[in-house]
């Protein structure tokens, strides 16, 4: 049968055993790589229940006696919940402001026509070159001048500013792809420009808005150096600063450190599983399916 199909379509199609062998080889490579990705993560998650000695001797094994106190110690501390609250404030503020400002900009740059539009748009994309991870020094000086040291806004507003270029780009691409017939119909039905934006464009752009929300959440949740420079008051610290301090304090007690790591990484994995679709849409402009 294989011979039949091969004469009809591709004379050089490999024999079945060759195909099976190459498949096996492919899976071997893929599984090996998957283990390299998952190994350190699993070690960390299991490690939260171990002593440092157990972590060293049996990185993948289960501990003889699970050390739940690694977790309870962190969960009973006031600072953990305070840091969680601070992280949530920073993420909520950053994401809501970035989405709002970028959606408004993207609308102007995609559906309205006016002189100088492309020039202004290019001005807004300049920021793509300088992620906040590298521009922290000038940003820090500016925050200090404005007097936002020890304020959540000292973190939120720069993150918004650096989030605007990428988010506007994603949303603009999506807004453009919405057919102009819809726009004409909306205007004929008596919608103004604002009405078209709010009642037609925003509901249709949900996947792109979701992508921007998810990508900005990741950025704001993970930000480290900006809070480190801006927040001297440790009651305002987010979790990223909290875990670094914790690691400095318990650096030799890897079990405790891994417990803290697990408390952050398990929600991150769940978040990733739930939002992967949006992340991929945002990064590839909706090209990748399945």
């Amino acid at each position, binding site marked *: 049968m294989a011979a039949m199909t091969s004469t009809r379509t591709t004379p*050089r199609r490999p024999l079945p055993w060759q195909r099976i062998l190459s498949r096996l080889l*492919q899976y071997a*490579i893929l599984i090996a*790589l998957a283990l390299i*990705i*998952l190994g*350190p*993560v699993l070690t960390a998650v299991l490690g939260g229940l171990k002593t440092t000695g157990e*972590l*060293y001797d049996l*990185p993948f094994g289960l501990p003889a006696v699970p050390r739940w106190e690694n977790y309870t110690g962190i969960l009973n501390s006031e600072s953990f919940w305070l840091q969680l609250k601070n992280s949530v404030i920073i993420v909520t503020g950053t994401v809501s402001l970035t989405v*709002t400002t*970028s959606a*408004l*900009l993207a609308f*102007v740059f*995609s559906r*309205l*026509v006016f002189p100088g539009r*492309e020039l*202004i748009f*290019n001005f807004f*994309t300049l*920021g*793509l*070159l*300088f992620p906040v991870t*590298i*521009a922290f*020094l*000038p940003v820090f*000086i*500016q925050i200090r001048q*404005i007097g936002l040291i020890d304020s959540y806004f000292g973190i939120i*507003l*720069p993150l918004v500013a650096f989030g*605007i*270029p990428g988010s506007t*780009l*994603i949303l603009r691409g999506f807004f453009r792809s919405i057919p*102009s017939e819809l726009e*004409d119909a909306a205007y004929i039905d008596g919608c103004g*420009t604002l009405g078209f*934006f709010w009642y037609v464009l925003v509901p249709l752009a949900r996947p792109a808005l979701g992508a921007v929300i998810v990508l900005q959440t990741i950025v704001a949740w*993970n930000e480290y*150096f900006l809070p480190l*420079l801006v927040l001297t008051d440790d009651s305002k610290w987010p979790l990223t600063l909290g*875990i670094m301090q914790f690691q400095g304090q318990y650096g030799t007690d890897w079990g405790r450190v891994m417990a803290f790591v697990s408390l*952050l*990484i398990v929600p*991150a*994995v769940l*978040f990733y599983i739930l939002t*992967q679709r949006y*992340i991929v849409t945002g*990064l*590839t*402009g909706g*090209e990748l399916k*399945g």
Partner: protein
Amino acid sequence: MGNRSRPRFRFIPREQSKAKVEERPRTTREQLFVIGLFIIPGAIIYTVFLIMPMLQAGYYSLFDWNGLGPLTDFIGFGNYERAFQHSIFQTSVVNSLIITALSLLIQLPLAMALALMVGRKLPGRFFFRSIFFMPYVFSEIITAIIWTFVYNPGGGLLNTVLATVIPNYEPIGWLANRNIALLAIFFVITWKYFGLHMILYMAGLQSINSEVEESARIDGANELQVLRYITLPLVAPTIRLTVYLSVLGSLNQFVLIWILTAGGPANTTQVMASYMYRFGIKSFNLGYGSAVAVTIFVIALVFSIGYQRAIMRRDYAGSV
């Protein structure tokens, strides 16, 4: 015209800048009002917290300034001269270039190989794709802490695993050895970021019409020839985009390195951004740090403009 048939990546700043959106007959008064209303909030935040700091950095970089007192010590390009002559800054530039080169030569081909493998037909591709891309969402802090344990010279994961495989294995201090540390860091960078490039390649590959490849096979091309002459040229726009993102991303590597080694041992893993932190902020030399910041911006800007003009221009050609 070519717009619909080729992959469109919305991260490209200047893409399709003149594409035709249905033009409304004229800009009405109401629209002018909306334009102003909609641009202003974003413009204020963007200008105050991104554009102004960049411009100010250019100004501060001309002063010897500890960041506290008034700007009085004008020294022209003194900070730049000092930086270019500082051997540790030179090392950090070289290290940034090494990471860039390794990313282009190792990370991108790896990502492409995996995208081709996991790409289109393999059963279980969604599972593998999800795992490979997962580290992208982890914070750099978490990633760095986990890998600090993996590389731990005493009983870290890597040494433990190697000791069970290799007899008489001597534990290695991966991050303490100046010949290995930068490579060890690069491995972590690849671990965290190759999935991003893989996803972009997968999107590019998916937009190829497989009939083109199939007809090449019918004409007698073997798999390698199909890859070399059909598949790769068709995803060339994506490859050019990932090269661009990879270079900028490599120049901007910082947090992972800072947590893993803080630029050590003996400043051998310092990169430009970590140098700026260490010798600008930590040593209260904000004028000097600004000069380093400006240097990094200029490098990124020159690369970006040059690359877009010379390499990526053809990707816009069909779209205007």
